């Protein structure tokens, strides 16, 4: 495992009261354990086998100088972590990823909220629109990257040259700054529909009675949106922000197929750098150590996000 797939593994928590109860008789305890294992065992086993064991083995590998293929590997202590902090490319790609995450999170959520708000106002054909905006999610990231690569490289350039629109006359993927924005545009296009669905659910959950009361008190729709709807929807925002943050940090497929990290490595996001370090430069130990450092950083950022936004939740 090179990248931790889920950030919040749900660990089985033993109910203290029940386990106290179980401790009364040895037999009772074993019976209970057997019963528990019967139900949670398969899931627990799968979880341990595909998440925890690889995760721990991955951490072990960060202390070796394994190249990814050789049979033997030697322990090198903390030297790999030293290399992580000395690897300027890792930190510059992490910086670029932060920039990417900032723009995609803000733009995705603003757009998704606007779409959701518009599509809960009984627009004609709103279900078709909802399905349409959701559609990009059903296309896998790899295919999506190739489709948009064609659009940016050929379609837009063709239109730009025919209609002499300066900004489109050369491929956006050939210039570092514009290539970065292609990533942002495609990500926002892909995820806005998904987040929209969550916001639609949140918006329909805002009680109608308080809105009506506000209307009677003379609040206009802007005031209702700012003072009531948005505070009531904080749980939706938490979920959407978390999802878009986590996806932004972990993005790899789109990066690989749309820009390949190019031109000249200028759009290489951090996941891609880690993968290349491990499998292309054959520095599995350092790559794994970078993955672990990345995991810690992302875990801290997302935990802080959830902690602080939880505080903003209100009761109706």
């Amino acid at each position: 495992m090179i990248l931790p797939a889920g950030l919040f593994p749900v660990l089985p928590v033993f109910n203290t009261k029940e386990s106290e109860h179980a401790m009364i008789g040895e037999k009772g305890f074993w019976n209970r354990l057997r019963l528990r294992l019967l139900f949670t065992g398969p899931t627990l086993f799968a979880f341990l086998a595909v998440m925890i064991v690889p995760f721990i083995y991955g951490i072990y590998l960060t202390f070796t100088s394994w190249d990814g293929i050789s049979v033997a590997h030697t322990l090198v202590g903390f030297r790999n972590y030293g290399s992580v902090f000395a690897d300027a490319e890792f930190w510059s790609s992490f910086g670029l990823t932060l920039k990417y995450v900032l723009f995609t999170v803000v733009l995705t959520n603003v757009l998704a909220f606007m779409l959701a708000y518009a599509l809960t106002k009984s627009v004609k054909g709103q279900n078709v629109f909802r399905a349409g905006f959701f559609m990009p999610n059903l296309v896998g990231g790899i295919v999506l990257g190739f489709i948009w690569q064609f659009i940016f490289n050929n379609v837009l350039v063709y239109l730009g040259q025919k209609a002499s629109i300066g900004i489109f006359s050369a491929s956006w993927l050939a210039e570092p700054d514009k290539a970065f924005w292609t990533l942002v545009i495609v990500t926002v296009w892909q995820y806005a529909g998904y987040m929209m669905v969550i916001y639609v659910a949140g918006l329909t959950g805002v009680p109608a009675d308080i809105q009506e009361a506000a209307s009677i008190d003379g609040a206009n729709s802007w005031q209702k949106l700012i003072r009531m709807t948005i505070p009531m929807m904080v749980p939706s925002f938490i979920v959407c922000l978390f999802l878009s943050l986590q996806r932004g940090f972990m993005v790899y497929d789109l990066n690989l197929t749309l820009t390949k990290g190019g031109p000249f490595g200028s759009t290489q996001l951090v996941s891609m750098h880690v993968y290349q370090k491990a499998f292309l430069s054959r520095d599995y130990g350092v790559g794994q150590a970078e993955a672990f450092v990345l995991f810690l950083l992302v875990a801290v950022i997302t935990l802080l996000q959830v902690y602080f936004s939880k505080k903003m939740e209100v009761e109706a």
Partner: protein
Amino acid sequence: MKGFKKVSLTALTLIVSASLSACGSSDSKSTASSDKSGTDNGVKITLLNSKGEIQTQLEDAAKSFHEAYPDITLEIQQVPSGTSPFERASTLYASGNQPTMIMLDTGDVAKFKDHILDLGDAKWNSDAIDSALDLTTFEGKNYAFPLAVEGYGLIYNKAVLDKAVGGNFDPASINTTSSLEELFKKIEASGKKALTISPMDWSLGAHYLPLAYGGQSKDSTEVAGFISSLRAGTVDLSSNKVFNGLMDTFDVMMKYNMDQASPLSPTYEKGPEMLGKGEVGIWFMGNWAWPQISGFDTANKQYGFLPVPVSNNPDDYGNAQISAAVSKRIVVDKEKTTPEQQAAAKKFFDWIVYEQAGQDFLVNKANIVPAFKNITMETPDPLGKSIQAYLAAGKVEPSLSDLPADHWTKVGASMQKYLSKAGDRATLAKEIEDYWKTVK
């Protein structure tokens, strides 16, 4: 309202059922094939193909191999485009899903040495062309089957060049940077574009720039010495004659490049189209591009290679030579394979080298320049023929096929920077020197 709901619901149902049926069909396929191998009681072997352009030919070869040996089923897997063979192979090894045979680049074989079978006692070892096995022989044992000789240089479209020079174009007349520039001028004067540079990192980083290493000397030990002093960080590239000569030629190429407005835009597919249609006279690429060129061919199969000149002295090494070497080799896994599978894999190699159908696949179908002396067939493809001619004349500079695995991405990126004029030659030299210092 209700009507719309129905429409979206139908659309959703369609999508879900389509995705389900997609899963279903792949499932049934895999069970069908495993059933088959079970009932036939035969051997099933797999080959990971890293030469994407011969995928269909390989699949056909697998069929005719199966006809010749009905108890062996060969399945061809493919390395996804944009992924290096090593990346894919080591990922498969890490997950324990390695195929029976893996097609690797020459330089990667050594890394897999502990996992692969010693092929040294096969008959074809003695029929291989000179020094074809040197790089995959460890402690006197050869570990890999040499599949293809590949070469690269400046590919020309003879129809365009004949018109440009007004007569029969002689490739030997291009042996200096200035004669190349003259040729570019003549092509432009004839109303065509001179050349197109494909800006892929692998083309610039794995093919163009290594000419500066290989061109250092005729003597391969001196080239190896040059590489080790690069690693040691003692080479000053900006004062290196061959490097500067090569980049001078690159400057000339950039000056006449048809895409200089946005030099990083072209994709690989554009090159063969422009050259085949005769829009440009010259394209820097290798003989693997022939299948794509032939799709657009307007020059009646009249193509060939020009060397990339590195100076203005026609006698300098590199000005008359094109770069070629065994590029792809097949290795056999020894960890997950049964003795039957190993025997089947060895049979497949013998089939390629010694049987009519195998040779026909290699030379005529896949357009490969074989690495075996006993195969006398001439490749039907003009670029392969051109390489065979250079090989026969001894005008070949061995390509550097054992460069570090990430050389092409890192140095390729620096070359792209130079090509798009985002960095000058001093930056390029420094980035290459810095890259070599980080190599383990």
